[in-house]
C-alpha cells in the first residue's frame, strides 16, 4: 500500500512496567473503512496488551479471512501473525498452540468467518478448550465481499442490498456456553471502558476465552433496519456489570447478595470485579447464564459483559498431558530413539 504511517511519537507517553509506551503495541496503519468498528477493537487490544505488560513477541495473532481478519496487521507489529484461510483459523491456532504452549494466542475472526464457513472448527476448538482468546468482530454481514447477510444477522434486519434476512440468527455467545466454553463475554466495539478489561480478562483466562464483540460495519450494515448498527446497539444495550481490573488476588465468592460487588479471581491471580445488576445473576452458573442470554434475546436485547466464566479449567495441553517444555523447543536428543532402539525393534520383527 502507498500509505506511510507517521512516525511521530508524543515524547511524554507513559510507560508500562516493561518500560514500553503504548505505541510499541500498535500495528500498521489500518486500511479498513473510516469509522469501521473493527479499528476500535484493534485499539482496545493494543491498550489491553500495554496495560497487561505483555511482551508483544510472546503473542501470536491468528485470523481467517475478512475485514476483521485483516486487523492482526493493525495491532502488535512486534508479534508474529498468521492470516490463514477463510473459516479455518481455529485449526491453525490449535496447531500453533500445540507447538508452543508458552505464547499467548490471540485469534481474531468475523461473523462470516466463524458462524458460516468456520462453524465446524469453532465448535471443536471450544470442545478442546484450547488456551486462546477467540474474538469475533461481529457486524452481522460479510464486509469484505460487500455486505451480504451473515448467519448472525438477526431475522428481519435489512442488508445494504435491501433484502430482508429470513433466517433465525445464530447467537455465538449462547452457542459457546451451550458447547461448554469456559469464558464467554460479549461487548461493543464502541465501548472501550467495557471492552479493554474484558480483553485483559480473556488473555488471563487459562483456557478458551470467547469474546463476541458487536462491531458495526459502517459501510454495509449501518442502515436503520439493521440490528447491528450503532444506533440500534446503543439503544438496546444492557450492561450486566461495571468492570474494573484490579491486579491484586482476592478470594473467589460463588454467591453474593444482589446489588453488591463480586470479585472473580482468575487463575493467574488477577481479579475482575462485577457489579451485579440483575436479581439472580451468577456468572459462575452456566444454566442461569444460558437462560439470561435466551431471555435477553427474546427481549431483543444484547447482554454485554462477562456472561459466564469457569475459572478453574483444564486446557488441551493438560488434557493430553504434553510436556511443560514447548514441543517446538525439543531437540534430537529428546525426540529420536536412536539406532539401538531400532535394532531391538528390527529383532522383534523377525
Amino acid at each position, binding site marked *: 500500500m502507498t500509505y506511510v504511517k507517521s512516525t511521530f511519537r508524543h515524547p511524554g507517553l507513559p510507560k508500562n512496567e516493561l518500560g514500553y509506551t503504548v505505541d510499541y503495541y500498535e500495528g500498521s496503519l489500518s486500511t479498513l473503512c473510516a469509522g469501521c468498528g473493527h479499528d476500535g477493537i484493534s485499539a482496545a487490544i493494543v491498550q489491553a496488551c500495554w496495560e497487561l505488560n505483555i511482551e*508483544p513477541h510472546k503473542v501470536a495473532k491468528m485470523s481467517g479471512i475478512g475485514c476483521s481478519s485483516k486487523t492482526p496487521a493493525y495491532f502488535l507489529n512486534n508479534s508474529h501473525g498468521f492470516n490463514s484461510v477463510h473459516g479455518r483459523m481455529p485449526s491453525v491456532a490449535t496447531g500453533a498452540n500445540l507447538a508452543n504452549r508458552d505464547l499467548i494466542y490471540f485469534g481474531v475472526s468475523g461473523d462470516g468467518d466463524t458462524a458460516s464457513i468456520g462453524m465446524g472448527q469453532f465448535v471443536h476448538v471450544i470442545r478442546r478448550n484450547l488456551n486462546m482468546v477467540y474474538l469475533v468482530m461481529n457486524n452481522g454481514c460479510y464486509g469484505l465481499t460487500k455486505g451480504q447477510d451473515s448467519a448472525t444477522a438477526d431475522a428481519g434486519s435489512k442488508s445494504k442490498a435491501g433484502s430482508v434476512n429470513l433466517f433465525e440468527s445464530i447467537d455465538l455467545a449462547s452457542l459457546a456456553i451451550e458447547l461448554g466454553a469456559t469464558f464467554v463475554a460479549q461487548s461493543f466495539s464502541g465501548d472501550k471502558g467495557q471492552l479493554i478489561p474484558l480483553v485483559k480478562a480473556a488473555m488471563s483466562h487459562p483456557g478458551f476465552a470467547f469474546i463476541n464483540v458487536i462491531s458495526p460495519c459502517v459501510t454495509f450494515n449501518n442502515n436503520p433496519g439493521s440490528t447491528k448498527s450503532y444506533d440500534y446497539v446503543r439503544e438496546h444495550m444492557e450492561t450486566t456489570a461495571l468492570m474494573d481490573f484490579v491486579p491484586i488476588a482476592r478470594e473467589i465468592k460463588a454467591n453474593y447478595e444482589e446489588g453488591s460487588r463480586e470479585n472473580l479471581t482468575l487463575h493467574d491471580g488477577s481479579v475482575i470485579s462485577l457489579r451485579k445488576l440483575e436479581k439472580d445473576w451468577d456468572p459462575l452458573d452456566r444454566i442461569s447464564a444460558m437462560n439470561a442470554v435466551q431471555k435477553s434475546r427474546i427481549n431483543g436485547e444484547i447482554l454485554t459483559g462477562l456472561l459466564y466464566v469457569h475459572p478453574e479449567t483444564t486446557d488441551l495441553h493438560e488434557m493430553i498431558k504434553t510436556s511443560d517444555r514447548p514441543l517446538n523447543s525439543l531437540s534430537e536428543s529428546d525426540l529420536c530413539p536412536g539406532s539401538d532402539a531400532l535394532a531391538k525393534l528390527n529383532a522383534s520383527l523377525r
Partner: protein
Amino acid sequence: MAINDFVVRFANVNGTGSASANALFTKAVFRMGVPVTPKNIFPSNIQGLPTWYEVRVSEKGHLGRREGIDLIVAVNPQSMKKDYADVHAGGYFLYDSSKPLPPGYVREDITHIGIPLMALCNAEYTDARQRQLFKNIVYIGALSALLDIEFAVLENQIAEQFKGKEKLIEPNIKALNIGVKYVRENFDCPLDIRVERRDLLGDKILFSGNSACGLGAIYAGATVAAWYPITPSTSVVDAFAKYAAKYRVDPETGKNNYAIVQAEDELAAIGMVMGANWNGARSFTATSGPGLSLMNEFLGLGYFAEVPTVLIDVQRTGPSTGMPTRTQQSDILLAAYASHGDTKHPLLFPASPKECFEMTADAFDLSERLQTPVIVMTDLDLGMNDHVTEPLAWDDSRRYDRGKVLTSEQLDAIASGSMNGNGRRTSSPGLPGRDGSDETAGEPLQQFRGKFGRYLDIDDDGIPYRTIAGTNATRGAFVTRGSSRDEYGTYTEDGDAYRRNVDRLAKKWATAAELVPQPHFYQEANAAKDGVIFFGTSIFSAEEAIGMLSEEGIHLDAMRPRGFPFSKRFRDFVSAHDRIFVIEQNRDAQFRSLIMIELGVDASKLVSVLNYDGTPITADFIYRKIKGNLAR
C-alpha cells in the same frame, strides 16, 4: 513338485478372528527363511462379509501378487463358489467337511481336502467363541502338515504371542495338533507343494508400510500429529501413537513429548499441521484420497505462504469413495498440483516399508528445507500389508535439517550489519546449513542489508529465510498470509512484486528437483534402446516381469523414480531411450502426465502399462503388456 513356490489363499468371513491365525502361517514361512508375501483383500465393512488373505511363497524372492491359486482354504460359504473356481488345475481345495459340500463341487482337475473343522472343534471345545476361534488354528495346524511347515516354528510363535497369558498357549497348541493329526491320518503329507527351510532372508524383517511411516515420523522428531480417521491411512497414526507412547514419554515427569489430536475433519487436520509447523514444531498428518481432496485449499496456502507441512497419502481406489479397501496409485496428479492457481508440491514414492520409514523422515527435512508441503505417496498395498524388507537403519550422527530458520542472534546481527555498515564480521553467527551446521559462515546475513525480509532470495536458490514466533522481541516479526506480499512480507497488489514472488517459487521448484530422493537405476550405464519406469508398489511385479523378459533375451533399462520434481538424472534416462514403458496402477497414466508436463518430452515414446482394478499389479500382467507392445 513345487518347493517354496506356490500361492495359498484363505477365504474367510470378516470378523471371525481369522486374520491373526492366517498371519501365523506367513510368519512361519518367513521364519523358515523363505521369501513370503501376504495380501489382505478385505471388504469395507466390519463383520460378516467375505475377506481373503493371499500368501505367495517364492524361493526366487518374487514378492508381488501372482495370479492362480495353488491351495485355497475355503471356509466362507458366501464366496465358496468363486473360490472353488479360482483354484488352478492341479491345485488343492481345503474345506470344512463337517457338512457335505453342496452339489456341483465336482472338479476333476483339483484335489479336495475335506477337514471337519467345525465337528473337530465342537468335539473339543464347549464355549461357542472358542469353537469359532480355534477352527482357524486347526486349519493352520493342518496346513503345517500338508505343506511341511516345521511345527516347532509354529509352537514358538504361539508361545511369543501369548507371553503373559500363558494358559492360552496350551489350548492353541492343542488346536494345531488336532489339525496335524487329522490330515496325517486322512491324507498323505506333505503335498507336492511344500515349504523347505532356507536361509534366503538374512536379517530382513516383516513389517507394514504404515507402521514404518509412523515410526519414521517418530525418528524424524515429529511432535504434533493431527488426523482424521480414514482407511487405509488410519494405522499410520495408530503406529505413531503406539511408538510415541513407547519412546516419547518423559521418564521423570511422565509427560508426553508429543501431541496427537483427532481432528473434526481433514481440513482441520491439515490446518493444525500447518499451524504447528509454522510455529516451529515438526508436524504431520496422514490421509487417503477423499481427505486429500479436502486439503486442497490448505495445500495451496502452504505452497504460497511457504509453510512446511508433511502429508502422508495412503492411496486407495478412487474416485470419490471408490473402493476404500482396495489399492491404487491414482492421487498422483492431484497431489502434484493440488489447489487452484499455479501450485506444485514435491512428492516422495516409497516402494518398501524401509523406504516408508526413510522417506517419512526425509519428508520432514525436505519440507523444512524447502518451506513447502511435501507429500509421501504410499498406498493400501504397501501400507496395510506386511512385507519382507531390509532392517530399518538410523545414523545416530544424523541431524535434523530444520532449514533456513533465523535465530535471535542472527536477527540482531542482520540489523547491526547495517548499522556498522561493513559487510564482514567474523563474529557474526552463520546460517543453518543442510546438516544444521553453520556451513554458510555468516556472509548471507550481510546480504539482508540491515533489514530482515521474509521473502528475500538471499542464496539465489529461491528459498527465503523464516523466523518463528517468539524468537526476538523487536526483530523478525511479520504476518504470514496467503495473499500477495513483497519481499518484506507486506501485503501488496503490485503486479511486479507478485511476479517476482512466483518466479522465486519457480526457482525454488528447480532447487527441489535435486534435493528430493533420486531415482534408483537398475544398470550402471544404459544398455538397451528401450527403458521401463515404475514406482511404489509396482516394484515387486515389475522386477519379476523384467526378469521374465530378460530370460527371453528382451533386455530393458530400468529406472525407479523416488521423488518429484524430476532431476537431471531422471531427464537423462528418459532422453536416452527410444521407447519407455511407464508402469502405473491407475487408469489415466497420471505419472506419465507428470513426465510430459515437467519435462516436455515427446509423449509418443512413453508407453503406458496400466493396472487399475484395485488389486495389486502382477508380473504376468506387466509381462503380457510389454511383450504385446514389443511384438507390434
